[in-house]
């Protein structure tokens, strides 16, 4: 079984069923499958081989979905990049995994054109969008998406042995091969590429759709970026059980989302705490007919208990699932909705076909109520970080069986007598803001890049909407009169929106510990943390 079989089998079972709704466009399973075949065929004709990396840098769109399946059908590995990436990080990622091809939109040229000179492995770039804006120089082999779409589907190579006509004959991958690399923030400041095999993704998707009790009648609204595993899996899982996805680009206008939910009779609504906080600021959610909603899920960060109450009040017929996970294994745990009243602060137990436990600093299992690091064992656990065996060895360690590896999550938890998990904190100092993991180091590095800054310390502040907000303390070089606006303008160029500090404070000096390092603990204590 391979991830693209989700699409192929649904196209076989429900050829004319709507798979994807986006900006008024409705694509059936058959249409998505045929378009993905053309992408695969084109990639193959251009020399893309088994295991090559192909990057997708698009806003959430039908093309992103078609591309990811097309890349998989070509036996290549897809990278779903955040549409808000800035030039430097995009260039870092493309070079880190030596991507051979890039699929993007002409509205991203502001960022994309900055990388062409620095990505020697990139052989061609596929553009969706405006034909007239495709660059005529500098860009390696630009091609218009529509040209691929006009290919004759009949010329796709078919496998006469396969009972599924849409499967490409050239498919050689097995489920131990990589399907994707997902880049997440690393504590060193550079993103790390989480390598996931077909088996990893299929295992996670199977476990999650099992506990959510998904059925083909489910209609999922996906407002989350597809670069975020939570957003990506909404597509993969719905295609697995033959459901429908309403794909939205952003949550900026919440009433638009509510309108879509009513219109399409949405049954599943995955969100993060910031989205729920915004929804709960609306006047009266109860006046909308959201009776079709069967379940609501939350992950990325814990929901405040008050919000849990209000969400259940607003969607009384919907089950609310509190969940927890990390990209390295997709999902770890979920709280069965009927446990919510008894343990509102818990993120539940390990999902089906997965084992979790808590260990002390020496790796020994600890009993109920004792805080330790959470360890995950399952087919959903990643193969490691791309090109970084050293960091991989820090998180993937020998498990109970010979040759087996288990995931040390870096998250501190305690477990109750019945095995329910309670999140305590991170072992490192990663910030969780708007559902995104941000490395303070990355923000600090960006700030040090601005002339006139001598010292920087970035710490999280509690925030009702964001979960945590980013605060930067800055010491200016003598003679420099940088303002907050200068700093923010610089950040905007270097950092993604969610990583830009919300608060900036200029200081004459920062507290130090004896080794001369900046003493963040004192800064945190000053603000009562």
């Amino acid at each position, binding site marked *: 079984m391979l991830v693209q079989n989700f699409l192929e089998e649904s196209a076989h079972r429900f050829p004319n069923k709507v798979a994807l709704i986006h900006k008024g466009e409705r694509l059936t399973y058959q249409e998505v499958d045929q378009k993905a075949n053309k992408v695969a065929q084109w990639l193959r004709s251009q020399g893309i081989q088994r295991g090559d990396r192909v990057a997708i840098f698009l806003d959430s769109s039908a093309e992103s979905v078609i591309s990811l399946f097309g890349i998989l059908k070509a036996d290549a590995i897809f990278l779903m990049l955040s549409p808000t990436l800035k030039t430097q990080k995009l260039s870092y990622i493309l070079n880190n995994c030596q991507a051979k091809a890039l699929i993007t939109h002409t509205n991203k040229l502001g960022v994309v054109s900055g990388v062409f000179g620095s990505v020697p492995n990139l052989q061609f770039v596929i553009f969706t969008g405006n034909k007239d804006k495709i660059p005529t120089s500098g860009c390696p082999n630009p091609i218009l998406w529509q040209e691929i779409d006009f290919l004759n589907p009949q010329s796709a190579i078919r496998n006469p042995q396969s009972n599924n006509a849409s499967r490409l004959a050239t498919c050689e991958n097995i489920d131990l091969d990589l399907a994707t690399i997902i880049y997440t923030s690393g504590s060193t400041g550079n993103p790390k590429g989480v390598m996931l095999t077909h088996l990893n993704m299929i295992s996670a998707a199977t476990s999650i759709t099992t506990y959510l009790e998904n059925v083909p009648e489910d209609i999922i609204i996906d407002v989350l970026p597809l670069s975020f595993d939570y957003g990506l899996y909404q597509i993969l899982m719905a295609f697995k059980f033959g459901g429908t996805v309403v794909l939205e680009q*952003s949550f900026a206008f*919440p009433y638009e989302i509510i309108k879509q939910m009513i219109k399409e009779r949405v049954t599943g609504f995955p969100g993060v705490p*910031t989205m729920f906080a*915004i929804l709960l600021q609306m006047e009266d959610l109860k006046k909308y007919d959201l009776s079709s909603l069967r379940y609501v899920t939350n992950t990325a960060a814990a929901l405040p208990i008050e919000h849990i109450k209000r969400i259940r009040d607003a969607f009384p017929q919907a089950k609310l699932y509190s969940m927890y996970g990390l990209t390295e294994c997709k999902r770890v745990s979920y709280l069965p909705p009927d446990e919510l009243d008894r343990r509102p602060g818990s993120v539940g137990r390990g999902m089906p076909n997965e084992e979790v436990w808590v260990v002390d600093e020496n790796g020994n299992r600890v009993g109920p109520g004792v805080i330790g690091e959470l360890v995950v064992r399952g087919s959903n656990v990643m193969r490691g970080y791309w090109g970084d065996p050293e960091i991989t060895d820090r998180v993937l360690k020998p498990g109970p069986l010979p040759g087996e590896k288990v995931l040390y999550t870096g998250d501190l938890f305690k477990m109750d007598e019945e095995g329910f998990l309670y999140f305590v904190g991170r072992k490192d100092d990663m910030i969780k803001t708007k559902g995104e993991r941000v490395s303070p180091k990355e923000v600090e590095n960006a700030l040090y890049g601005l002339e006139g800054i001598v010292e920087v310390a970035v710490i999280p502040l509690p925030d009702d909407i964001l979960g945590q907000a980013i605060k930067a303390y800055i010491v200016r070089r003598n003679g420099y009169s940088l303002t907050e606006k200068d700093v923010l303008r610089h*950040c905007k160029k270097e950092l993604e929106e969610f990583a830009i500090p919300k608060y900036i404070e200029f200081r004459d000096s920062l507290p130090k510990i004896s080794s001369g390092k900046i003493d963040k603990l004192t800064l945190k204590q000053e603000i009562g943390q």
Partner: protein
Amino acid sequence: MSIENEIRKFIEENFILEGDDHLGDEDSLLEKGIIDSTGVLELVAFLEETYHFKIKDEELVPENLDSIKNISQFIQNKLNFSRESVDREDGRS
């Protein structure tokens, strides 16, 4: 100051524009990466405070809030509407 200028001033002071990129009156604030979901909340709070009206859930749509032009038209309509209702209460037409 005209409504359009007031809004431009608010956006330029509170959201960060990339480089020296000029923001046109009809440019989408969302597509230009100027506002996101929390930015919209800040914008709404500013409008409600400055122009003394309440923005309804149903009005939280891009047609009202996604460009300087849309925002100023929206405000103009809201202000005209509340003036009309005051007029009606006064028995004038």
